[in-house]
């Protein structure tokens, strides 16, 4: 049997499924937990970055002499201080501009000084001569034939002839015959949609503390979703050996995909190398907004056909995503997700990756899927409205299920979409009456989830406790889940396991904490490492008893003879075997190093009631219910937390969050005042229902849950608002001015 297969069909769990206090909890409620900006070092300098005020300009010259001459300034770096041969050329260019600055906020020089005041003063002494170039920030405008071009070389081989050079790639998925499908429909609706760029909005700005000596050995403390990746990229950008750099992941104050790459880290290392002193860098909130990854803004055209009885006959989606100034918008993912929820005979989804003068997009929770779902699920809702059909029934009728062909190619394994829809249909929320000016929205959502390279080490201690080392930063309580899974396997109490996110020198490579992979992949690794340790423990018991290792089994936290033939021996508990391990053969650790490939997809159905004030266009979310397939909930409270958090991020994206650029190409709302993430008083309680359809690719059936929860809200809210207001909203955010304008246009 493969290592990543579900083997718990009849298992009765003892630890898994309970809700213990998280191991890092006390540190986090007392202020002791150390995040990115909380570390300091003797002799530490403060680093600061000079950023472009222009959306697009050629750098004719940079004169840093006055800044260098300012007392207290210890080092200044520009692009010349980095590896000209770096493999990660776009990442380098984004961290430190070369010939051109490509967006408002693009870094082009940096310095280290004795304190932040001196550093800020010195930044103002750097003189830059720019040749300002025409810019473009809108995705549709960037695709126009006469748009300002960011990269003369244009896109890759997939881009058809005749498109703007700003189109970096094109992708297409689907099967069947669209014309035939649309001909079978009783109603075909075609509609265009736009979504604004939304920022991940983690409350902790990017921060790091770097120390790189003349001997080429370095240390880096950083808030990141993946310190191994930070290590490898920084080593590349600085031209050093990766293992000479030891990276420690601090506690991380939110990431949501936005902390899966580097921004400050290589710069801090370069400054430290030049100054021969530790350098700390912390972004301001405005820097976070201007220069780190929001997600793509998008423009999409959707066409869907349906019969009178609610069968979807064909679907077409054309997705245009801008990903900032570099290729890599998640439009391929988006295009694959467009129709993932539906079993369509005739389907096509196309994607264009477009660059423009904005910060390089970074992954944001199910990258690409929320926008795609917004457009498709809105049209599904319109069809239901026009045909007088129940939106949940229609979705059940057309739902993807085991064995049907996904719109992006493969046949589905065991999945839980239908279960979430049935749960929605049965939910009290779906039957509750609506008040005046209220509407109810329904939407489904899908995300792939990911496995990724994973190493863990599970070391037993003489006192019968366990030190579990993982390499995936804990972004939402995963240490608690790891402790639960280790405790479950070993049959010991939860609090006898301590899980630590260890540094890059202490463990083999681990992929980033992304793709909803941690509880899946590090969890699988933990289970397998515990099983490895149990096997070793059984071998020790066998030695002690003088019997064959195969004649020993592990049950209830004890080694036991496997049957009468194995002899009559008192069971050896975990603690006793640990206490004697030094003399029975030496220390025992369990290991796992592999790339689990059995990540299970996760589907969700969301229900929302929204109320629209017809005089002001203000929307109030009155009731919200998240129903999602978790496969198996290890720590249900944190599963619910993922559901609730994703839903609320989606609510913000739907209603108020957006990057607003002026005619000058500058970001106008680079702060939490005008980039409006939801506040406590905006929201109702977020009800949750965990559906458990086991993932065939995980021993306990775990599916990642972190990302899918942000997929349905955009459409669910849009459907609720459109029904409440009586006018279809096709552009996000559905801000009050936009809703009021739509209402007025309808009245007019």
């Amino acid at each position, binding site marked *: 049997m493969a290592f990543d297969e579900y083997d718990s069909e009849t298992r009765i769990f003892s630890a898994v499924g309970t809700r213990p206090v998280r191991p890092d909890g006390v540190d986090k409620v007392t202020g002791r937990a150390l995040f990115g900006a909380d570390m300091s070092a003797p002799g530490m300098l403060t680093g600061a970055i000079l950023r472009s005020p222009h959306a697009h300009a050629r750098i004719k010259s940079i004169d840093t002499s006055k800044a260098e001459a300012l007392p207290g300034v210890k080092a200044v770096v520009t692009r010349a201080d980095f590896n000209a041969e770096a493999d990660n050329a776009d990442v380098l260019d984004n961290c430190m501009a070369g010939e051109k600055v490509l967006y408002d906020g693009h870094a082009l020089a940096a310095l280290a000084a004795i304190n932040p005041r001196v550093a800020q003063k010195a930044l103002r002494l750097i003189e830059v001569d720019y040749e300002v170039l025409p810019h473009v920030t809108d995705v549709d405008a960037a695709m126009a034939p006469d748009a300002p071009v960011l990269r003369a070389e244009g896109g890759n081989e997939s881009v058809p002839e005749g498109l703007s050079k700003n189109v970096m790639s094109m992708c297409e998925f689907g099967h069947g015959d669209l014309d035939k499908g649309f001909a079978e429909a009783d109603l075909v609706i075609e509609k265009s949609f736009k979504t604004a760029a939304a920022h991940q909005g983690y409350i902790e700005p990017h921060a790091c503390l770097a120390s790189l000596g003349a001997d080429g050995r370095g240390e880096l403390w950083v808030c990141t979703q993946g310190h191994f990746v930070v290590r490898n990229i920084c080593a590349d950008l600085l031209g050093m050996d990766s293992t000479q750099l030891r990276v420690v992941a601090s506690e991380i104050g939110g990431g949501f995909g936005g902390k899966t790459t580097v921004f400050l880290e290589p710069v801090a290392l370069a400054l430290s190398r030049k100054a021969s002193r530790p350098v700390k860098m912390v972004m301001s909130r405005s820097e976070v907004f201007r220069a780190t990854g929001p997600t793509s803004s998008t423009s999409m055209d959707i066409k869907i056909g349906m019969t009178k009885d609610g069968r979807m006959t064909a679907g077409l989606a054309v997705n245009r995503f801008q990903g900032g100034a570099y290729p890599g918008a998640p439009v391929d993912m988006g295009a694959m997700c467009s129709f993932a929820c539906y079993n369509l005979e005739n389907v096509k989804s196309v994607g264009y990756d477009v660059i423009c003068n904005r910060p390089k997009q970074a992954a944001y929770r199910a990258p690409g899927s929320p926008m795609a779902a917004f457009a498709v699920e809105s049209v599904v809702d319109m069809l239901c409205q026009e045909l007088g059909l129940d939106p949940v029934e229609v979705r059940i009728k057309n739902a993807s299920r085991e064995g049907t062909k996904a719109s992006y190619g493969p046949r589905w394994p065991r999945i839980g979409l239908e279960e979430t829809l049935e749960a929605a249909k049965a939910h009290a929320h779906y039957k509750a009456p609506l008040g005046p000016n209220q509407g109810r929205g329904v939407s489904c959502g899908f995300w792939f989830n990911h496995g990724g390279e994973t190493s863990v080490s599970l070391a037993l201690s003489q006192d019968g406790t366990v030190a579990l080392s993982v390499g995936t930063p804990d972004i939402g309580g995963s240490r608690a889940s790891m402790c639960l899974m280790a405790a479950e396997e070993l049959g010991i109490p939860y609090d006898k396991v301590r899980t630590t996110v260890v540094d890059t020198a202490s463990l083999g490579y681990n992929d980033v904490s992304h793709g909803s992979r941690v509880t899946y992949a590090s969890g699988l690794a933990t289970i397998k490492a515990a099983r490895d340790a149990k096997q070793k423990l059984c071998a020790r018991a066998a030695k002690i008893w003088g019997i064959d290792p195969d004649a020993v089994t592990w049950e209830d936290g004890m080694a036991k003879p496997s049957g009468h033939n194995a002899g009559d021996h008192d069971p050896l508990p975990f603690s006793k075997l640990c206490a004697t391990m030094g003399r029975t053969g030496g220390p025992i650790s369990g290991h796992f190093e592999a790339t689990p490939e059995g990540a299970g997809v996760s589907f969700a159905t969301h229900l929302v009631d929204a109320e629209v004030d017809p005089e002001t266009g203000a929307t109030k979310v009155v009731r919200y219910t998240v129903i999602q397939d978790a496969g198996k909930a290890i720590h249900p409270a944190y599963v619910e937390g993922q559901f609730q958090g994703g839903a609320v991020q989606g609510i913000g994206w739907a209603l108020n969050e957006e990057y607003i650029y002026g005619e000058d190409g500058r970001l106008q709302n680079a702060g939490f005042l005008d980039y409006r993430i939801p*506040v406590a008083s905006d929201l109702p309680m977020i009800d949750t229902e965990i559906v458990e359809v086991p993932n065939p690719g995980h021993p306990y059936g775990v599916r990642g849950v972190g990302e899918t929860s942000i997929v349905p809200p955009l459409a669910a809210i849009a459907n609720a608002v459109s029904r409440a207001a009586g006018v279809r909203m096709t552009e996000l955010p559905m801000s009050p001015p936009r809703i009021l*304008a739509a209402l007025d246009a309808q009245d007019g």
Partner: protein
Amino acid sequence: MRYEAPNTLDRAVDLLAAEGGVTRILAGGTDVLVQLRSGMIEPDLILDIKRIDGIYDIVQEAGGYRVGAAVPGAMLGEHEGVSAMWPGVVEALELVGSTQVQGRATLAGNLCNASPAADSVPAMIAAAATVRLHGPDGTRDVPVEEIGVAPGKTSLKKGEIVGSVFLPPRSDRAGDAYLRFIPRTEMDIAVVGAAVSLSLDGDTVADARVSLGAVAPTALLVEDAAKALIGTTADEAACTALAAAASAACNPIDDKRGTVDFRVKVAGVLATRAAKIAMARAKGDA
């Protein structure tokens, strides 16, 4: 940058007058510190007024209340007398920022920051509040509506400082209210603000003042809107006229917070809603 925290208004005025460079008054600091941090201002002198004797006092005067320049929103809200007499002013100041900001933000600071969107300013204008300015040439009392002259600019002269805000007395059959529109429920800058203060003779509006925020370069005192109410019972016809007058007075801009059309329309909606609340308060119904 120099930081000074004098104990008297006279000393404060002397320090301001003597400083040749850029000065900033630090009351609650909720705007000044943001401007400092962003590099928008680089003052040579920060003058903290919070050590000035009596600057936190709220005292009864001539039937109204004199509110010291350092009194934060949280303190004003806890003052029963002011809250009973001028609930609209109190709720307007309490709308500024978060609970945390309420621990610091002041009426005087909100006024002198001279943002057209300041929440407490329309409420103070509707209340016919005045401020007492202390300067090298002595003190003078000025109506609130004469302080802001343009976004970020006041009519204060070199060396002048606001020492207090005076909320005048009013009859028992009077009420005020302030409403603003923001995209969220908290934490935003007003997209439109509307304040109404009125007094009744029987059930008829005897006198009224209507002020709008965030719809012009400064907060507006809209006399036509007041006229629409005076002599009526604030019935539907009066409210329709009030809304039309309020909308007509707007001279807004399109910006990241709202559009011209939105502000013009919602100004009328909010003026009407505020008038209804003020009426209810005047009648003792709310």
